[in-house]
């Protein structure tokens, strides 16, 4: 994947930025260099913000608080205890990370609008503390006389040395952000954002990944705050006021929500903007708001993203070769002789509707059970109960004899239940191969694993090889290197099933796999699904399409109005009078114009 238009755009942008910095450092006087150093610091802040806002997709309004905490920690340690910048750095980064970890528990699980409010309130409290705790913070005026940045005993002068030092940190931060965002961790975040239910269904613990993103954003903010206070030589409440959040948000929206380089370009642009518009005086900030609004409306992918889109339209995108397929080792289950799935008297009520009423079902190893029933009969409710999306009112679900009732979906996925969705849930801008590869050993994805990998990730190579194998099994090899969003519907279905298989399930739940497929595609899919049974994977298939289902499954069960009304061999269930009536209605005509009061 070397020379895609996107990498070309990023390389050119990187070269341009580097040239601009070198030229500035060599020719410009101290003041513009100071502004450019501040831009670098905001770049670091924005790089961090990309983790929580861009990758995790959570609208955090607390980024200034973390930066301010880093700034105060570093400033106070320098002034009170004489600790130089580099010695205090672990504490300046550690303090905001600690705060993030503490507030994460109650705050991170909130919905978008509440998360935004909670983080806003936390920033308000932090600002008040900074202003009011005068003995520690110096109050509204802050503390002056902070020494300059000192590295290994050498103080850094203003002008180009400061610029070089700040941008040195920026370069390191960018490299780390790039490493974290480009691989499997970045893809796991993307899946969590674009298709949260799908992410859980392959065993990704979204809460943990969001937590990681939140801590990373705090760590970058702490570093930025520490640099900020030593560059400005004062620490004041301005560092944690709301305008910092707005600036940070603007940088990321204008530059790019995900690309590290976008954060840097955005920072250089946005921080220098008021300087460039100096002649406009009071109106310069007005221009700032207008630019933000324009970019949001006209270039939702940000400047860098928009450039990438243009490049992709103008230049040919080479398709890299599909990796050589490699079969995954099958999952060994401890209780192979027990039924895969045992559902006992499962019930669930929604408001006044008994969606599922004391249903019991069993699926044995290597068996395919078909679940049919008219619209609203409770089939999807059943699947959602088994896969952990809903909790039952009563009843139990056992997997290989272990009670798994009401476990979260990602745990069930790790225990061996995989599923597909009625509406295919793939990450559209990821290739089909990577959509599937992500599910290979997804629980192992994390911060430490990503940091340990070098330039190339062996886990990703293995995952892609296995994904290639699974796509071939589902007859979707040709699509492997295409973005999932560009694929035809029938292929998307196959990719989704391949992804479910990549999680190495012992039970696969398929929700209307044949919907939208033509007859040839249906027959092909049925044959491929039958082949899965030979490996011992059990199937639970929800389907309306009898022509597809009947030859595929070993047994069939029919639900009507939340109750199990028939179970047995497909032919028997299909001709069961209760089933026929549930589908076609009572043969007698409706009683004419009779009203019950």
């Amino acid at each position: 994947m070397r020379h895609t238009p996107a990498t070309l755009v990023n390389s050119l942008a990187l070269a341009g930025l580097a040239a601009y910095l070198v030229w500035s450092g060599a020719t410009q006087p101290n003041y513009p260099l100071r502004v450019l150093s501040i831009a670098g610091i905001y770049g670091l802040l924005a790089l961090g913000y990309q983790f929580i806002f861009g990758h995790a997709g959570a609208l955090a309004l607390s980024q200034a608080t973390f930066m301010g905490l880093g700034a105060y920690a570093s400033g106070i340690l320098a002034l009170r205890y004489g600790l130089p910048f580099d010695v205090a750095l672990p504490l300046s980064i550690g303090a905001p990370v600690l705060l993030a970890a503490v507030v994460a528990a109650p705050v991170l699980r909130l919905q978008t609008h509440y998360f935004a409010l909670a983080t806003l309130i936390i920033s308000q409290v932090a600002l008040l503390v900074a202003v009011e705790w005068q003995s520690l913070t110096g109050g509204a005026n802050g503390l002056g006389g902070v020494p300059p940045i000192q590295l290994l005993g050498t103080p850094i002068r203003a002008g180009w040395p400061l610029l070089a030092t700040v941008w040195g940190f920026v370069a390191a931060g960018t490299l780390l952000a790039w490493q974290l965002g480009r691989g499997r961790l970045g893809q796991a975040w993307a899946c969590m954002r674009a298709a949260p239910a799908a992410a859980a269904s392959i065993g990704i613990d979204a809460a943990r990944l969001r937590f990681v993103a939140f801590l990373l954003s705090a760590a970058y903010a702490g570093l930025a705050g520490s640099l900020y206070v030593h560059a400005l030589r004062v620490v004041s409440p301005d560092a944690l006021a709301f305008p910092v959040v707005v600036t940070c948000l603007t940088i990321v929206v204008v530059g790019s929500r995900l690309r590290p380089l976008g954060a840097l370009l955005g920072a250089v642009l946005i921080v220098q903007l008021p300087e460039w518009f100096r002649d406009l005086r009071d109106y310069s900030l007005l221009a700032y708001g207008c630019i933000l609004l324009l970019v949001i409306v006209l270039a939702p992918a940000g400047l860098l993203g928009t450039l990438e889109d243009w490049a992709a339209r103008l230049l040919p995108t080479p398709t890299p070769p599909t990796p050589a397929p490699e079969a995954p080792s099958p999952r060994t289950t401890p209780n192979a002789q027990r039924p895969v799935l045992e559902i006992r008297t499962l019930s669930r009520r929604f408001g006044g509707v008994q969606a599922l009423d004391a249903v019991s079902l069993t699926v044995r190893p290597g068996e395919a059970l078909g679940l049919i029933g008219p619209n609203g009969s409770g089939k999807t409710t059943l699947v959602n109960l088994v896969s952990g999306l809903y909790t039952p009112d009563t009843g139990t679900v056992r997997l290989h004899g272990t009670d798994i009732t009401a476990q979260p979906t990602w745990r069930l996925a790790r225990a061996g239940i995989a599923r597909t969705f009625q509406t295919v849930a793939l990450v559209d801008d990821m290739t089909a191969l990577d959509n599937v590869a992500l599910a290979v050993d997804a629980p192992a994805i994390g911060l430490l694993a990503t940091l340990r990998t070098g330039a190339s990730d062996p886990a990703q190579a293995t995952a892609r090889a296995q994904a290639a194998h699974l796509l071939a099994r589902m007859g979707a090899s040709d699509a492997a290197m295409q973005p999932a969003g560009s694929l035809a519907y029938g292929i998307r279905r196959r990719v989704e099933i391949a992804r479910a298989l990549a999680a190495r399930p012992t039970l696969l739940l398929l929700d209307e796999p044949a919907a939208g497929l033509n007859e040839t595609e249906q027959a092909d899919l049925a044959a491929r699904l039958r082949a899965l049974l030979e490996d011992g994977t059990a199937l639970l298939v929800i389907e309306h399409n009898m022509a597809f289902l009947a030859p595929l499954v070993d047994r069939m069960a029919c639900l009507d109005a939340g109750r199990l009304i028939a179970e047995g061999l497909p032919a028997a269930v299909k001709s069961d009078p209760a089933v026929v009536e549930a589908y076609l209605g009572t043969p007698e005509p409706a009683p004419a114009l009779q009203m019950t009061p």
Partner: protein
Amino acid sequence: MTALLEIEDLHIRYGAVTALHGVSLQIHPGEAVALLGANGAGKSTLMKAVIGLLRPHAGAIRFDGRSLATMRPEHRARAGIGYCPEGRRTFPGLLVRENLLVACWAPAPERARRLEAAYALFPALRTKAESPAWQLSGGQQQMLAIARSLMGQPRLLLLDEPSLGLSPLLTDEVIARIPAITATGTAVLLAEQNAAKALSVCARAWVLQTGRVALHGPAADLASSPEIRRAFLGG
């Protein structure tokens, strides 16, 4: 006789999925037509295309001889198409009376008259007139949804799966109102999974199977046809 609604070779896609592949059908003024099929067959999709909530990929929809292609849903509704959505979707926070009034564009005296007509058609709604819609039972909500779609005195009523989630008795009760609706000159397109019940009140029927017309004809012929069973339960 010219058709009130004429659908010609309608194709609809949801993203990459094709939901309808070239469906054609006609409805004449004042007749009740059943649109049958298992779920996923494309019934709701067709209904939504007629009212304008979905944009066709190809094909034409004409109402009263006029193409609907460039008309927004609100204009189609005002032009005489009543829509009763799948799953009822009454406005939960509005009173029953308000749910009805909100769908009527006539001046106040005429509004009051139509409100009376709605209560006459579904007497249960009169007793609940001042309750918010979310307090109604499923059957009452279905009646409210139908009554709401009649408040504009449409010439065509799109009735999308009124039996969904209702007990057989309530389904009978709701479906039994259809002849009273057509008696006022309103044509009805009734989408149903429950074939027997729908056929008992409709003159003609279309059967959809995975987005295509599997068969169509007079209701009486279809009711006794083995084909219809195949369309629902497969071969």
